[in-house]
C-alpha cells in the first residue's frame, strides 16, 4: 500500500443558509480519492446543495472546503479537474449534443472522445438535434456522457438517471464500473434508486435535514442491522437493550429491525427461541435509518454505535 494521499474532498462545519432555512447544518465529511461514494437522502435533504459545494460550484455560508487540500475558490486549476453534472444541467439554447461534447472536450483535459462516441451509440443519442428539443431521458444521457467522458478526477452526478429507462440506466452503471476499473477516480453519485446503485458504492453518506446521519463503508453497513421476526414476547426479550430502527406487527407476530451485529451465539439463541433473523438490504437500512433519525432528537446516535 502507498502512503495515504490527501483526501480528494474535505469539508468542515459546512453551513448553508437560504433565507431563514438551514440547507446544510454543520456538515463535516472527508472523501478519499478514487472511491465511489453514494450520497443518499430524501428530497430537500440538502444533497444538491452539498454536491455543488463539494464540486466548488456553490459557496457555503460558513465552514471550509478543501479540494485536493486546496481552497477551490482561490485555485483556478482545481475546477477543471472536477465535473459536476446537475440533475437540471443547463446547456446554451442553440447547442446540440455534439456541440456540448466539443465544449466539454475543451474544458476537461482528460476527455476521452472514443468513450463519448461509444456512449452516444449505447444511448442512441441524436447528436444533431438541439438539446432543448431532446426528451428528458436524452437530456440525462447528454449529462451522463459528459460526466463519464470527462474522466475528471472528481466526478459528481446528481440524480443522473431522470427519464432514463431501466435498460439505459443499466448501460450507465455497467459503463461506469468498467471505466472506473480502468481509470479510477473519485465519484459521487446521488440517487433515490438505492437498490440499483448499492453494489457500485464503496461508501455511503446519508444526509437528512442538512445533517449527515450516516457516513459509513457500504460493506460494513451490510450486516449491521437485522430483522427479528417471531412471537411478540420472545422478540421483545431478544431485542432488549438494542436500538430499534423499525417495528411491524401482525397479531401476536412481531418483526423488529434492530441495529446490531449478531454473533454465532446470538444467532443460536434466536433459533432456540424460534425467532427468525434476516439481514436487511442496504436500501432498507438507509430508509429505516432516515426514518429513525426523524423521530429521534439527534441522528449521530447510529454513527456512534457503529464504531
Amino acid at each position: 500500500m502507498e502512503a495515504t494521499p490527501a483526501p480528494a474532498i474535505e469539508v468542515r462545519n459546512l453551513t448553508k443558509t437560504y433565507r431563514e432555512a438551514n440547507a446544510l447544518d454543520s456538515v463535516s465529511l472527508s472523501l478519499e480519492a478514487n472511491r465511489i461514494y453514494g450520497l443518499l437522502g430524501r428530497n430537500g435533504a440538502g444533497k444538491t446543495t452539498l454536491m455543488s459545494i463539494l464540486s466548488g460550484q456553490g459557496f457555503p455560508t460558513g465552514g471550509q472546503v478543501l479540494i485536493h487540500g486546496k481552497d477551490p475558490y482561490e485555485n483556478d486549476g482545481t475546477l477543471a479537474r472536477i465535473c459536476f453534472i446537475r440533475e437540471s444541467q443547463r446547456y446554451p439554447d442553440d447547442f446540440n449534443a455534439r456541440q456540448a461534447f466539443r465544449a466539454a472536450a475543451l474544458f476537461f483535459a482528460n476527455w476521452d472522445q472514443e468513450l463519448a462516441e461509444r456512449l452516444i451509440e449505447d444511448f442512441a443519442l441524436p447528436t444533431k438535434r438541439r438539446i432543448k428539443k431532446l426528451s428528458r431521458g436524452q437530456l440525462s444521457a447528454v449529462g451522463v456522457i459528459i460526466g463519464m467522458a470527462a474522466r475528471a478526477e472528481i466526478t459528481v452526478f446528481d440524480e443522473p438517471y431522470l427519464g432514463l429507462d431501466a435498460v439505459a440506466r443499466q448501460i450507465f452503471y455497467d459503463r461506469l464500473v468498467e471505466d472506473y476499473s480502468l481509470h479510477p477516480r473519485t465519484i459521487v453519485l446521488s440517487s433515490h434508486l438505492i437498490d440499483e446503485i448499492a453494489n457500485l458504492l464503496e461508501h455511503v453518506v446519508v444526509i437528512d435535514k442538512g445533517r449527515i446521519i450516516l457516513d459509513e463503508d457500504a460493506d460494513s453497513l451490510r450486516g449491521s442491522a437485522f430483522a427479528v421476526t417471531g412471537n411478540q414476547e420472545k422478540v421483545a426479550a431478544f431485542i432488549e437493550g438494542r436500538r430499534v430502527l423499525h417495528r411491524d406487527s401482525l397479531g401476536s407476530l412481531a418483526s423488529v429491525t434492530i441495529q446490531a451485529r449478531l454473533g454465532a451465539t446470538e444467532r443460536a439463541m434466536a433459533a432456540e427461541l424460534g425467532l427468525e433473523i434476516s439481514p436487511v438490504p442496504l436500501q432498507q437500512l438507509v430508509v429505516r435509518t432516515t426514518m429513525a433519525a426523524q423521530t429521534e432528537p439527534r441522528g449521530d446516535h447510529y454513527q456512534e454505535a457503529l464504531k
Partner: protein
Amino acid sequence: MGAIDDSRPIFIQIAELVESEIVAGTMAEETQVPSTNEFAAYYRINPATAAKGVNLLVERGILYKKRGIGMFVATGARDQLLGKRRSAFAAQYIQPLAREARKLGIDAETLASMVRQSLAADAAEGSVR
C-alpha cells in the same frame, strides 16, 4: 455463478462464490482466477469490493498472487475448503433441519430415512448426468 445479494457484505460473498467454484472443481488448483475488474464487471460491483474479497482468500491461503500475471488457486485449496465446509455442516444444515423436524413432529427414525432416500435419489440423478 450465483448472484450478489445486497444484505450481506459483498466482499464476503465474492470470497464465498470463488470458494464454491473451487469446491465444485470449476476453478481448478493452479489455474488463474478472473481479475478484480472482471469480477466487478460480471457482478456489477465496485472493483475495490471485489479486490477485498479476493484478498481475503489470499490471506487464507486459498489464492496466491503471481507477480504481473494475476491470482491463482493454491494447491491444497480444495481440501482446505472441503474440511472447513464439513466442519460447518452440522451447524449450517443439520441443526436447522433437526429444529424444523421437531417442530413438525418428525421423529429421528423418519428423518434419517428421509435423508437416506434423498441421498440415494441424488446419487441416481448424479449418475444419469
